[in-house]
């Protein structure tokens, strides 16, 4: 009897301790829960605007509730449907291109690592990392002074070629997607390479030495040792990028957009922003809800594919 009671006491004490430990452990993740709540869940409250006829300066309580008016508006109008499909196409195309070329920073890091002259290596790395810290507005002003009709490129070509007709690179609607990818890469490649350089540094030096003793060439070492070692990093980064497939940032496209390239450059986020500019709050909220729906669909599809291929999903 006495033994039993003691055992129960011990049990409850350990349960209590576990409970307290649980509470303390909960405190560890509390900041992150708060972070997610404040920045990811609280903004969802803003969705309410999609169901009202909202326009400033009136408060939400002062404007009529309109139910699904703006959602209907999205699909009722043939031109609007075309517009939405067009911006989704642009978003997919530009995110797709960066996805397609996402191996570029990895290869860049690998080759950078092969440079034996250290000062030169550091120089290249600094120069390629620097653009990451320049805002898009400044990137555009650089682009303007280099590529506009009277910019550096046209002036140079004009001085070398007789009867040269200047081309306005910035306003042309040709290969907008590819050009935007080039800008993005110019700005980001060096920065993205840092991750891979870290991964390469982590490769066991013995592997390389053994391969070298066995007579492997540089290319063989890259192919059979370096690349396989950093592939896991690559896949993690691709996964992370996939999550941002639809939110490919509007700043870049905002500064580069003009009347001539807008049909190709307007991505979903930019479209929502442009719509909102003149009191289109409710409709643009409705469209951003649509974005969320597409995102969730994409997530589901990727998860299915992952299950099919790897046998396990990530949700």
């Amino acid at each position: 009897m006495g033994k039993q009671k003691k055992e129960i006491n011990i049990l409850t004490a350990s349960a209590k301790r576990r409970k307290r430990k649980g509470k303390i452990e909960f405190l560890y993740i509390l900041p992150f829960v708060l972070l997610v709540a404040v920045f990811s869940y609280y903004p969802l409250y803003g969705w309410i605007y999609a169901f009202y006829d909202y326009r400033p300066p009136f408060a939400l309580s002062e404007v009529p509730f309109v139910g699904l008016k703006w959602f209907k508006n999205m699909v009722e109008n043939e031109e609007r449907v075309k517009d939405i499909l067009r911006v989704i196409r642009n978003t997919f195309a530009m995110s797709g291109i960066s996805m397609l070329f996402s191996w570029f920073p990895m290869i860049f890091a690998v080759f950078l690592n092969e440079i034996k002259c250290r000062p030169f290596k550091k120089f290249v790395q600094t120069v390629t990392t620097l653009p990451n810290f320049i805002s898009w507005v400044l990137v555009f002003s650089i682009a303007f002074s280099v590529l506009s009709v009277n910019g550096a490129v046209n002036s140079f070509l004009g001085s070398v070629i007789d009867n040269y007709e200047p081309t306005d690179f910035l306003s042309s609607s040709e290969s907008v997607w590819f050009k935007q990818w080039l800008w993005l890469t110019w700005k980001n490649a060096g920065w993205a390479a840092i991750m891979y350089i870290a991964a390469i540094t982590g490769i066991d030096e013995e592997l390389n030495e053994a391969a070298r003793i066995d007579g492997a060439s540089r290319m063989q070492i890259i192919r059979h040792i370096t690349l396989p070692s950093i592939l896991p990093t690559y896949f993690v980064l691709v996964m992370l990028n996939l999550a941002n497939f639809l939110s490919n940032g509007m700043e870049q496209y905002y500064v580069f957009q003009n009347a001539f390239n807008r049909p190709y450059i307007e991505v979903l986020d930019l479209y929502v922003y442009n719509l909102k500019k003149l009191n289109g709050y409710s409709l643009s909220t409705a469209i951003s809800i649509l974005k969320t729906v597409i995102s969730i669909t994409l997530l589901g599809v990727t998860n299915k594919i992952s299950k099919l291929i790897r046998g396990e999903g990530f949700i």
Partner: protein
Amino acid sequence: MKKVIALLLSMALVIGCLAACSKSDDNKGGSTGTGTGTSDTKEEITIEIYDDAANFNGEQVGWFGKVVKDKFNIKLNIIAPQVVGQDVYSARTAAQNLGDIVILDPGEFNDCLDTGLIKDISADIWNYKNLSQYKGQIEAVNKTLPGNNGQIYAIPCEMTNTAPNVRSEDTIYSSPLLRWDLYQELGAPEIKDLDGLLDVLKQMKDKHPTNDAGDPAYPFVLWKDWDGNDGMIGIANVVQLTTWYGEKIKGSAILKPDNTFTPITDKTAGYYKILKFLNKGYQMGLVDPESKTEDWGVVWGKMGAGRMYLMWYSWQVGAWNTQERLNDGSAFIFVPVQDQTYYADADAYYGSGRLWGIGSKVDDAKYKRILEFLDWYASPEALEYQHAGIKDFTYKAEADGKYMAINENANIDNLAVPAEYGGAGYQDGENKINQWIVGAVSTNPNTGEGYAKGYWSHYKEATSGKTKQEWSAKYGVAEPIDWMRKNGKLLLSPNVAVSLASDTTDSALWRNQCNQELCDASWQMIFAENDAQFDQMWDEMVKKLDSYHFQDLYKFDVEKHTVEVNAKKAVK
């Protein structure tokens, strides 16, 4: 470690670049004032001005900042939605405090009045003598505010003390302006119509492909910054030029000389005509190819450098016409095109449409000081600062007490202002509110002339050199507006006090989408390679606009502006 240092260095480099790029003009001349006038007894306050008209966001600095600081011990903090984006409007209205002083377009003003953001100033305004001088106009405008029973909430912008159905200026807002020397060089041929104008411009361009410094010059230099501003839809440059044929664009509708409306998409009306004119110019190689991407700042520089051969805003000549150029015959001046009739607004007796108000959240002490400030702002002393600049720096009094301009390049070259006036550059320190209670055309009781230099007899005399003399000799009149009057080419639209309806969420959306489509398509049409392509683009655009509810928008705009047209008819 080295990597970290490299990273830090590169960051420092970028920050250094940014610092070098930003203007180093934040010399707060205003805060070093010696404290004259009433400021000694009052503590310093900052007044926030929400200002639809401002092109500058932040604290007023430089010489005008010093004037206000010395006189009232007030700092002006200007909130400019044109600079920081329209979001600031929704954010501040949501916080129930738009600003201590607000300067708003009429639609927004009515909405803010509706939600109680604007203070009722009826009880106090007539205690202030300068504002009381405009009692008639202020009352008339307030009467038109929806749901108002005789209270005073608004003070109109740019009122005048002249009359609502005259035009006191010698020029009108928009008319074709050519370089007189280049026009003379061609033998000053008579220009019959827009095609004739293009011919003249083409010859100018052929003779002078560059300015004196060797930079390429073009007849047309366009910019996109103001497209769709002030509730207009379409490209600002095109919208303005439709007044050359007596038409005035009101949103999506065109008001024709016979006071009837037609849609902006009407192929027989002004918008199409002017767009086609610009496109023809492009096909003849007369449009600066940089027009596609450049902004207003770049264009202003080109105008000052003589890289533009056709101007169309009356104020644009300010970039070029100095006394020297007026006197040596190389200034820009109106050259009539025979088939044109020019639309012009009469003096803004009841104001330009924009309205001043005081925020409902200001406390009593601040409210008093704001009214004091506004009363001063409408006084001759303040108007001289606003329209003429600094005495003995940008103008001086002659022996007869009338004024004469000096240092005319103060604005365009941002001349350094002497420390006694507040230091910094002249342009940096100009009144950044960029909006007046009383317009420059009003009569200054100190001189009996208007407030800006263009109305001063001494200035007219000094600038009546070669350009003006030759011009007068050719056309037989003294001023451009006289020529228009004499030949029956002036269509004067009287100034009326009306309140226009603000957009609903639906009409705002239609307007936004139609505007973007119209602007994008218009820019593409200006650069169309041939007429067939131009017309095909136009038809496609019209089709697209219709699907964006253009017809509904047109109906809304006609209804909205009929009120105004009826009031104007009543004046005539």
